[in-house]
């Protein structure tokens, strides 16, 4: 009786800790969510700080005004037919100064005022006007509408980056210049335009005429060299190791070394590049060829490792079937294994290329962390790279370089995003049967 009543009171359930296990799962999901949120928060903070500082770099203050290309200034003795050198050494900035001071109605004997007018526009006008006049000497004596870049300090003031609340002597822009800015902006001759110079100019000591041109070309050269060298060598090495090499102590040693090399700090490759390519082979310093070679060495281990794992992921039944139907080993490899492994190989390659695009440390020792103001024509010419330009700008003293640093980071991020999206797209395409 007592037995019966007991079984009656306790229903037939086993305590399998269901509640506890549900709780554990909920907790685990919450941890995951927190981890992702933290990641997103920091990414958001990073992007916000870069974009809020950098978006203004894509706009640049310019001044458009009619400029009289006065023969009395450019070529006072009228010797340009005999001696074209005159057109090179002429004092072009004074033409702009005259035009601007006329517009602002500043007396020719107001020397303080004229000096301040001189600081309103970029001294890069020398090259700009010289090119204009040199290409077309008929322009001398005529009045042309010319658009010149505002000086960096004026640009910063227009963008509100200079603290105008401090006393006049404490800042680089005078009260009079601020007045002129308002005056010129009111009639539309001073305005902000898209900063194409950021992409076309090479490095410069003047913020307003400095851009990423030489760095972009250098980076593209290097990426092409890395692709041309490390993809074939890396894939060939991986195929050999995975499909042909016997497993013995020697191949184990190679494998360990490759894995080690993939983790070596990148500056070590720079040291190697200096010792081998520059000191031993006598290649020029600062050349994107050397940079490309160094970065190729750096990416090689990663490409070998990803290619090997992509090859390993191809089921061995495919190999057996191909061989069983009478394919030779090379037919089996190129017609069956490689196509299946291609998405993995491509992803690995593009990701290591993206890493190579963002490296500065190995470039330091081979002289690519440098001021390069001429465009590199060939990979043998001196060049810099995008991340190097960011690093160089970050250490500049002028205010206008602060926004340019962040602007250059945005450009680099765009490049990386394009490469990574390409990796995803290519992978999808290849994975379709």
């Amino acid at each position, binding site marked *: 009786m007592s037995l019966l009543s007991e079984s009656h009171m306790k229903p037939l359930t086993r305590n399998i800790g269901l509640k506890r296990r549900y709780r554990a799962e909920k907790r685990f999901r919450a941890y995951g969510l927190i981890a992702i949120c933290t990641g997103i928060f920091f990414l958001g903070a990073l992007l916000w700080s870069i974009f809020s500082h950098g978006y203004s770099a894509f706009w640049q203050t310019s001044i458009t005004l009619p400029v009289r290309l006065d023969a009395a200034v450019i070529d006072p003795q009228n010797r340009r037919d005999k001696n074209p050198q005159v057109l090179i050494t002429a004092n072009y900035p004074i033409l702009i100064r005259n035009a601007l001071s006329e517009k602002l109605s500043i007396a020719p004997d107001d020397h303080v005022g004229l000096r301040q007018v001189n600081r309103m526009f970029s001294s890069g006008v020398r090259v700009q006007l010289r090119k204009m006049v040199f290409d077309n000497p008929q322009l001398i004596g005529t009045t042309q509408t010319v658009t010149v870049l505002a000086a960096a300090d004026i640009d910063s003031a227009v963008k509100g980056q200079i603290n105008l609340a401090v006393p006049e002597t404490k*800042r680089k822009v005078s009260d009079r210049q601020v007045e002129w800015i308002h005056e010129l902006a009111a009639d539309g001759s001073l305005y902000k335009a898209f900063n194409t110079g950021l992409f076309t100019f090479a490095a410069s000591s003047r913020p307003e005429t400095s851009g990423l041109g030489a760095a972009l070309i250098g980076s593209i050269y290097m990426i092409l060299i890395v692709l041309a060298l490390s993809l074939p060598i890396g894939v060939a090495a991986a195929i050999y190791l995975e499909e042909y090499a016997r497993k013995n102590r020697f191949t184990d040693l190679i494998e360990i070394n490759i894995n080690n090399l993939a983790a070596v700090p990148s500056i070590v490759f720079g040291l190697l590049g200096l010792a081998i390519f520059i000191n031993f082979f006598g290649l020029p310093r600062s050349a994107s060829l050397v940079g490309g070679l160094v970065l190729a060495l750096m990416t090689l281990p990663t490409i070998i490792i990803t290619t090997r794992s992509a090859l390993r992921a191809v089921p061995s039944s495919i190999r057996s079937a191909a061989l069983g139907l009478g394919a030779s080993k090379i037919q089996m490899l190129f017609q069956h294994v490689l196509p299946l492994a291609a998405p993995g190989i491509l992803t690995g390659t593009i990701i290591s290329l993206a890493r190579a695009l963002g490296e500065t440390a190995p470039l330091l020792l081979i002289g690519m962390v440098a001021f390069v103001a001429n465009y590199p024509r060939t990979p043998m010419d001196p060049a810099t790279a995008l991340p190097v330009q960011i690093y160089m700008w970050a250490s500049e003293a002028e205010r206008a370089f602060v926004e340019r640093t962040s602007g250059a980071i945005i450009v680099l991020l765009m490049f990386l995003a394009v490469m990574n999206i390409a990796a995803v797209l290519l992978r999808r395409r290849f994975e379709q049967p």
Partner: protein
Amino acid sequence: MSRMTCPVGVYLLGAVFIIPGAVFARDHIQIGGSSTVLPYAKIVAETFGEIYPEYKIPVIESGGTGSGIREFCRGVGDNTIDIANASRPMKQSELQLCFDSGVKNVEEIRIGYDGIVFATSIGSPDWNLTPQDIYRALAIKVIIDGKVQPNWVRKWNEVNPSLPAWDIAAYIPGEKHGTREVFEEKLMLNGCKASGAFDALKVSGMGDKAASAACIAIRKDGKAIDIDGDYSETLARLAANRTGIGIFGFAFYENNTDLLKIAAVNNVVPTEETIVNGKYMISRPLFFYVKKAHFGIIPGLEEYIDFFLSDQMIGPDGPLVEYGLVATSEAEREAQRAAFKEGKTMTLP
């Protein structure tokens, strides 16, 4: 198959390396060295390229005085640099290195001075520091009541009542900076001697060398912060901590006068005038070194130096002074130009 691919690959690699070495001669000036001199060299290089369109604009690497001189002294030839910028004079050992690798004709050229200044955020009260204040605030061991003891000072006004009651937070250049050496020598060591700690340390049984080393040791409790980046990092730190004090180059200050307030040292406010006449005590000369063996081989090398030394560049109205260089006196500039014309090279003693 594998037997065939291997040799083909070797040939391809060989072709990549061997062809260029022989064919390419350098047609631009290659410069390396100090990042303090870099902005000035950049201005000169760019203007040089604009005025002499027949020459390419020199390439200027940035890596620091030490590594620049090492690269400079690696030898003579196309793939070595022509000029090393330096924010301190070349050391005897470095010149020896140069001579050992065949770089025998080295010419030293002094371009001007760089002041080293203390600055706080704009809007803060006036500061007037002495080396003794700096030593007593930042050294790891100081002399208090005649005894050498660990530095426990927390606020600036505990060091000197005329200073503000700010928590000590000094952003000083890290040890790899050339500025650090000047800071240690001209401020810490002098302050140590002035406060009597140097003698006290010697009384306690230290030699001259050990006492100097103890004098320049910086406190490690987070009140003196090493900045291993550049001045823009120091500026960012000051923006975050309004009661911090930072060390800057005079040129950097000149470009950021709307954000920084400069401090006097020994009652002297650093200006171009006080730096060049030596009244302001913390400054250093800037140099570059040139390999004379490259004259006539690298196009434009001599013209570049002539142009650099001309008054339109390093003169008092030139763009370098505009950027923040402290120009040398008229006579000194003239002497430097004459020395270059004469072609005096450095010799080992």
